[in-house]
């Protein structure tokens, strides 16, 4: 997908003369501008998360947003007298969203330019367009999945988890073991296919090949006797993180080959990619065949390549950006100690 087609995952709003009429610090905030509240609610319904980067006094702005019934829609709002680009950078870091997948709405051309200067790949919109934003192609979602409907709450739990981790004195692994994480790995069934499609479209960094499949192709894959297709859901003491990973393998006479390994960027630090690779090595061991993995280099997925290579996979074939890797060890990998794995029974094609 080229940059312009990449779906927007996060919309960041200015406040004065964008969300409401007037300037809060100079005479107060007036009524909401037409279409804004409808757009915010619609984006939320689609699972597009939202935040605020505004030059204002935090407490006053919060009070206004609460009175207008919009405060709860915004994750980690950055309201201060710092530059807007700085606020946006903080938001994207906290949410682990790339600037390519973010949009900024502001009435001031000067502010939009300032933000674009620092974050050249962000998409900036004039506030006059606020009411039409839900119609633009980059804000469309094909389905509203169960995960999309819960996304704001899942991101909020992620933020709480992050601040708990910052306050935690030990290492990342020690912190993870305090969360009591459970990873349920189950065969993909038809009701889950919309989320499968959504994960392939939304995930760029932790995506081993960038292959996308249509709904019909996915249906064929779950019915195919040669393929094993799994989805996993992560839960912990903070609640569910939703369906966060996919593993598609194809079995041939000579090998079991990973065609697709995808992990949601929201859970990048929690060992899910490693756990799915471990699961794959165990499946391969049961078949008695070597485990291979296709990898196709994209602009974003170097992290996935490094994950494979540091988990014991080595190149056996190379053709430009396309690589075939093979797991080198006789023994399957071991699951991370901080994860409890629940495997959903024997694999049967649907």
């Amino acid at each position, binding site marked *: 997908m080229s940059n312009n087609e990449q779906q927007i995952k996060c919309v960041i709003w200015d406040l004065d003369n964008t969300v409401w009429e007037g300037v809060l610090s100079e005479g107060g905030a007036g009524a909401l501008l037409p279409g804004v509240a409808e757009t915010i609610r619609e984006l939320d319904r689609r699972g597009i998360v939202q935040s605020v980067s505004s030059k204002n006094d935090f407490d006053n702005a919060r009070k206004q947003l609460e009175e207008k019934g919009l405060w709860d829609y915004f994750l980690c709002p950055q309201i201060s007298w710092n530059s807007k680009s700085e606020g946006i950078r903080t938001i994207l870091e906290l949410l682990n969203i790339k600037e390519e997948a973010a949009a900024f709405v502001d009435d001031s051309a000067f502010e939009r330019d300032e933000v674009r200067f620092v974050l050249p790949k962000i998409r900036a919109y004039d506030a006059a367009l606020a009411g039409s934003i839900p119609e633009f192609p980059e804000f469309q979602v094909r389905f509203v999945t169960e995960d999309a409907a819960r996304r704001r709450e899942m991101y909020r739990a992620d933020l709480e988890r992050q601040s708990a981790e910052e306050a935690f004195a030990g*290492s990342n692994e020690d912190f993870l073991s305090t969360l009591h994480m459970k990873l349920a790995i189950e065969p993909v069934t038809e009701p889950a296919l919309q989320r499968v499609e959504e994960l392939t479209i939304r995930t760029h960094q932790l995506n081993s090949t960038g292959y996308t499949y249509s709904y019909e192709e996915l249906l064929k894959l779950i019915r195919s006797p040669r393929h094993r297709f799994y989805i996993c859901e992560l839960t912990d003491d903070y609640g569910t993180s939703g369906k966060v990973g996919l593993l598609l393998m194809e079995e041939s006479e000579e090998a079991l080959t990973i065609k697709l390994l995808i*992990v949601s960027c929201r859970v990048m*630090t*929690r060992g899910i990619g490693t756990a799915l690779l471990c699961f794959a090595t165990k499946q391969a061991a049961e078949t008695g065949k070597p485990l291979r993995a296709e990898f196709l280099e994209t602009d974003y997925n170097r*992290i996935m390549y*490094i994950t494979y*290579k540091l988990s014991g996979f080595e190149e056996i074939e190379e053709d430009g950006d396309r690589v075939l890797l093979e797991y080198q060890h006789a023994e399957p990998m071991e699951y991370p100690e901080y994860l409890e794995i629940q495997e959903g029974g024997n694999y049967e094609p649907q």
Partner: protein
Amino acid sequence: MDKKEIRERIFRFFVEEKKDEGLTYDTELLKSKHVNSLFALQMVAFVEKEFGIKLKRKEISEKNFHSINAIADLVEQHVAGK
């Protein structure tokens, strides 16, 4: 820059990130306990930035990253080859 200095700089990075007081130059770094995808990326990015080198795809391997000593050997080859 000699190997000793390279090794110490790598060691400091791991101590800071992993907060593991028992860490030695030979500790196995790639046991699942130590590596998730993000940390693996940070580790490779650290080595490239700290020593101003660009690793080839093939050099990112278990063999070269399994311990601080192994990483230091890899860096030393790059620094010496400059």
